[in-house]
């Protein structure tokens, strides 16, 4: 982990190896570019769990593929393998032991990809595209959770074609997150449901959305005892809500903050408000990163309620992000997310995945 532990190493990576390093705005932060990125928008990124040595990154894309790269300590990325679906891949996740990757697609199926054999088999079927897939590891069971636009949340033992359980949701699943024993699903029409996974998954609470606009992304955070205690919810209106499940004082503890907007409020031009495409929590510091349609990423400290950093603006929206298991690497994907509609879609435009050293920038602020 030599390179990713220091901030000095990245300079070498950007000179010459990855092509032009002039001030073209596709990589204004001069982060490491992942080689052989997908050919269409990247929908999801996930790093391998700590049970596996090394860092492996998987990325799903609208080109129907899921790609796996090995990220080496010196910053080099080596494409390792890929699998295909028959429709765009919307989400992907790792099993807890790092041997399998689960992928969910618009082709209404989810697949289990065994990396050792490089074989993938279907493990789930829905009536609509599957938008979210997560691996659940409980003391007494393990399964895959899939949330779909067919308004159901299904749980699959990967060996059976029938779901172990199927829960009805009020609306289409837009995003979900799982940190045992808690799962949160945000749906269309601003629906928000928390599930508890102990013993067997069941609906725990439906929450009135703290946000007034369409939900787009959700990420669970943990408390100092490493137990999931709340979640961050992002909407299309440049706002993230931090919501605790059982806070001592909800009015004080829960809050929202604005992000991914252009201009200050003092200028005469209307402010552009962008969607928050993804939220990720740093596994060690508990600080969070948000990426938006404005092509920027930001780091925040939710306990100190301050912003830690905002990046320069990329020329494309940032559609996905994730941290590796020890929080040293922050990966983010630059590709078109449809926020400006069909007209701005340029199939020729390259899609990128960038890696950034996250060890220093996400340290929490000292509380005064």
């Amino acid at each position: 982990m030599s390179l990713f532990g220091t901030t000095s190493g990245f300079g070498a990576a950007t000179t010459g190896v990855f092509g032009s390093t002039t001030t073209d705005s596709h990589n204004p932060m001069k982060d490491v570019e992942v080689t052989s990125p997908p050919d269409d928008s990247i929908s999801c990124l996930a790093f391998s769990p700590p049970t596996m040595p090394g860092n492996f990154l998987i990325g799903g894309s609208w080109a129907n593929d899921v790609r796996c790269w090995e990220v080496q300590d010196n910053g080099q990325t080596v494409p390792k393998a890929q699998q295909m679906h028959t429709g765009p891949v919307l989400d992907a996740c790792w099993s807890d032991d790092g041997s399998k990757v689960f992928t969910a697609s618009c082709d209404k199926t989810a697949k289990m990809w065994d990396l050792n054999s490089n074989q993938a088999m279907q493990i789930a079927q829905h009536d609509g595209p599957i938008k979210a897939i997560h691996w659940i590891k409980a003391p007494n069971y393990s399964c895959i959770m899939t949330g779909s636009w067919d308004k159901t949340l299904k749980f699959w033992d990967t060996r059976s074609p029938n779901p172990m359980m199927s829960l009805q949701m009020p609306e289409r699943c837009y995003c979900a997150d799982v940190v045992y024993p808690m799962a949160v699903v945000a749906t269309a029409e601003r629906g928000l449901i928390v599930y508890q996974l102990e013993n067997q998954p069941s609906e725990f609470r439906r929450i009135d959305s703290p946000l007034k606009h369409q939900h787009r992304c959700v990420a669970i955070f943990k408390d100092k005892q490493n137990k999931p205690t709340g979640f961050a919810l992002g909407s299309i209106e440049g706002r993230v809500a931090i919501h605790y499940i059982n806070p001592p004082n909800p009015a004080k503890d829960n809050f929202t903050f604005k992000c991914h907007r252009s201009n200050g409020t003092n200028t005469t031009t209307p402010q552009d408000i962008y969607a928050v495409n993804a939220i990720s929590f740093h596994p060690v510091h508990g600080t969070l990163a948000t990426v938006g349609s404005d092509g920027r990423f930001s780091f925040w400290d939710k306990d100190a309620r301050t912003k830690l950093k905002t990046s320069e603006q990329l020329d494309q929206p940032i559609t996905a992000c994730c941290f590796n298991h020890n929080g040293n690497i922050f990966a983010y994907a630059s590709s078109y997310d449809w926020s400006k509609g069909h007209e701005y879609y340029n199939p020729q435009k390259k899609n990128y995945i960038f890696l950034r050293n996250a060890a220093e920038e996400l340290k929490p602020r000292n509380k005064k």
Partner: protein
Amino acid sequence: MGRKKKKQMKPWCWYCNRDFDDEKILIQHQKAKHFKCHICHKKLYTGPGLAIHCMQVHKETIDSVPNAIPGRTDIELEIYGMEGIPEKDMQERRRTLEQKSQESQKKKGGNQDDSDEDDDDEAGPSTQQVAAVPPQAAPMAQPGMHPVAGAPGMPHGGYQGMPPMMPGVPPMMHGMPPAMHGMPPGMMPMGGMMPPMMPGMPGIPPGMPPHLAPRPGMPHMAPVPSAGPMPSRPAVPSAQPAVTKPLFPSAAQAQQNAPGVTASNNAASASEPPKATFPAYTQPSVSSSNSSNPASSTVAKPPATVTSKPATLTTTSATSKLIHPDEDISLEEMKSQLPRYQRLIPRPGQAHVAAPPVATVGGIMPPQQGIPPQQPGMRHPMHGQYGAPPQGMPGYMPGGMPPYGQGPPMVPPFQGGPPMGMRPPVMSPAGRY
């Protein structure tokens, strides 16, 4: 200072029940939150003033005060600071304050940032709360999932027998009078369970104690067991729409606050009954979710941008523009509707990842190529609670293969297909891989 004395109460906003240190601050708040025009953001002085302004300048009518809690949205009431508050509400407030003074001091935090006070891109609560944040952060972290873990245990124990009653719960809490025909409407279910039950449900009172026993910690549930048996249930659903509104002030208010989007009101009533059933599932925690409602309702943005079922959002207003297409569906849904993503055919580059074997899905099962014997199959012991997963089914290949590379096609992808042949019916409709 005006017609009414302060009555030694801290100034509070009639529209949203928030407390303020000073009447001046209260007035600033009202002007910014309740008397601000959502079109041009001009701050007026009173509710009627705002209504008149919208009518004259923008030719638009508003019927409720923005960001007000339900019951307090009257646009015709001329309230300025503490002046003009109806005596009824003053007394109610005093009573509530007395109750609250036994509990925590700070009732209203309103940590939703005020859009006109904070800078852009800041994790900024309202300024009143900044000092309170650091000390709060530490205690905040502790509860974690522990209380939560406790709570799910309880309802699950109790819910086994409960589910049939669920839809009836919220209305029973508040709507018992309407549901109980012939009951004196003043009968509160909480206190007087026995008498109201008698005429309508002779068999129930004896049945209540057993129901109550497993739920000692949930006083709210007290009326529920009485609602359980059949007689009450048919009456209950009819009471639902009228009664569930108070439980979801933010949802109800958000829908009410869309003056121009009339369709959303229809959608609101259509979508509320499903929402009404949620607290039934989560009875123990309904108080905490309700307590978060006031906080969230104060954030309500200008009504014009509320999303609604007719699947369009208002994406522009005077000072801001939402960079998002107009339809209120997710970006992925929009993109997936493009023909190029609808085709569900293998893209070029799929190469040898399993196209040929798919055609022989049915035929794959027998020639397993010696896999079954090696498959312990059980990575995680399934205790059979999920429908007895077949034992010994090869779910995947164990390791030992050369790690990566583009799939040496020696093993067909449906390797783990169960010998029972369960897979084919599932796989085939999905098309080829």
